[in-house]
């Protein structure tokens, strides 16, 4: 049997509404729509500035291929490492009460509040200290600097997502699993980790997309050297520096396409998991 919509009925919640209830919906819809239109207009402007042959031409260049390679490898490796560290931090923040928890929380937010250039500068100065100076030559302005900067960014984006998901997870099933023969580790693995799957996918996708788009810290800490530390974001900067706006736009389109694909994929995966009942 099908149901037809009736006037004065809120379809989403099934709650009856009064005649002027559409006014808030109009305001909310207009504001949301205006922002989405602005974003789409920006992307469309970029897309129409370049052309598929121009993008293919840019993609054929060896330095851009190296840049894409380093971007993908570094972002993926940094995200994988970040997920392990972020899960540990999320557990500490959401499961334990200890003095200084708020301070730890604030420290973890530092990469968000620091200007990107300052973040890069902090890493650069860190490797000038006595303890790290011996390995500075192997890290600073080298590929490991890209990985380290990506890692710091990835953790700062993954932790809040995982912490929030873990905070919403009822601990009783995990606790109860102990009476069914689980150790603490197996209870967490069997009961809580499956509930975090959707959040882990979201956190990883967000962290990865942020890594791909990171520029400021990389410029200061890793530099922008062709074939050595050049990633997609620095490629755009280098192309602009030589006045090649069309190539810069073409690289931007590659970057946007990569990020949109990953974010859309993660959303679809998250939706599928929610449909399968994987939720906190």
């Amino acid at each position: 049997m099908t149901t037809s919509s009736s006037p004065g009925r809120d379809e989403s919640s099934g709650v009856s509404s009064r005649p002027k209830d559409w006014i808030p919906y109009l305001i909310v819809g207009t504001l949301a729509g205006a922002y989405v239109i602005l974003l789409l207009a920006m992307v469309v402007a970029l897309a129409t500035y370049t052309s598929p042959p121009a993008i293919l031409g840019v993609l054929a260049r060896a330095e851009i291929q190296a840049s894409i390679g380093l971007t993908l490898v570094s972002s993926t490796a940094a995200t994988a490492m970040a997920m392990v560290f972020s899960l540990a931090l999320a557990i500490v923040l959401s499961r334990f009460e200890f003095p200084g928890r708020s301070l730890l929380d604030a420290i973890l937010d530092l990469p968000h509040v620091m200007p990107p250039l300052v973040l890069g500068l902090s890493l650069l100065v860190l490797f000038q200290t006595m303890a790290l100076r011996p390995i500075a030559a192997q890290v600073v302005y080298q590929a490991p600097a890209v990985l380290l900067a990506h890692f710091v960014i990835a953790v700062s984006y993954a932790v809040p997502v995982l912490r929030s998901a873990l905070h919403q997870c009822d601990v009783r099933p995990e606790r109860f699993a102990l009476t069914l023969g689980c150790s603490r580790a197996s209870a967490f693995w069997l009961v809580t980790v499956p509930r975090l799957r959707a959040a882990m996918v979201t956190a990883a996708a967000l962290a990865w997309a942020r890594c791909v788009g990171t520029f400021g810290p990389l410029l200061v800490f890793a530099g922008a050297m062709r074939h050595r530390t050049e990633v997609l974001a620095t490629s755009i900067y280098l192309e602009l520096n030589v006045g090649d706006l069309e190539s810069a736009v073409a690289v931007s389109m590659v970057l946007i396409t990569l990020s949109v694909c990953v974010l859309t994929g993660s959303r679809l995966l998250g939706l599928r998991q929610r449909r399968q009942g994987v939720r906190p």
Partner: protein
Amino acid sequence: MIQLETLIVDAGKQQIGPVTFQVPEGKHAMMVGPSGAGKTTIVEAIAGLRRVIRGRILLGRVDVTAFHPADRALGLVPQDAVLMPTQTVRENLLFGVRVSSGKWLGWRTPRTQRGWMHWQERVCEMSDQLFLSDLLERSPDELSGGQKQRVALGRALMMRPSVLLLDEPFAALDAAMRSRMESLLDEHRQRHPCTILHISHDHDDRGRFGDLVIELPA
């Protein structure tokens, strides 16, 4: 046998106890008392889920006060079922079996194929008795309160524990289903002798159900 000796339990902002009682081997004891008397807290302490401040808990003749919950080998049916939310009814019924197989990293790896078939047969038998046969592939979200309680009861009975702790296991069941579950519990106890500590708010339970009554003061 379940024996508590001057047990004082940490219940967050307050303490419960001292509590002393004994449920003899193979008996079914009803624990009653006013709301807030600490019935659930005591049952959770016996299961190892609450910190014991003072006193001893003996199961059989073994002092399990300091044991990890997993080492107490008892079955617990909590008040609100507490099913594993990402697992189907079948997986919930098999949860203890999978954990005890020692291969919790490989969820779908049974110890042996023959052993696994045996457990699948047990699930079918248990789900028939609990009227859950049609719900085996459903997730807990898709169950009513009464169905969840039956799954929780089945999950505890699957392991055939020698001590069974029931925290108002029939609260969400209608009269007919409740009567069936009570019969199932009696049959289970006859076939697989176990000592039961059963919390109930229903005063009628005192007379017609269980071998003895433990009354907690307010």
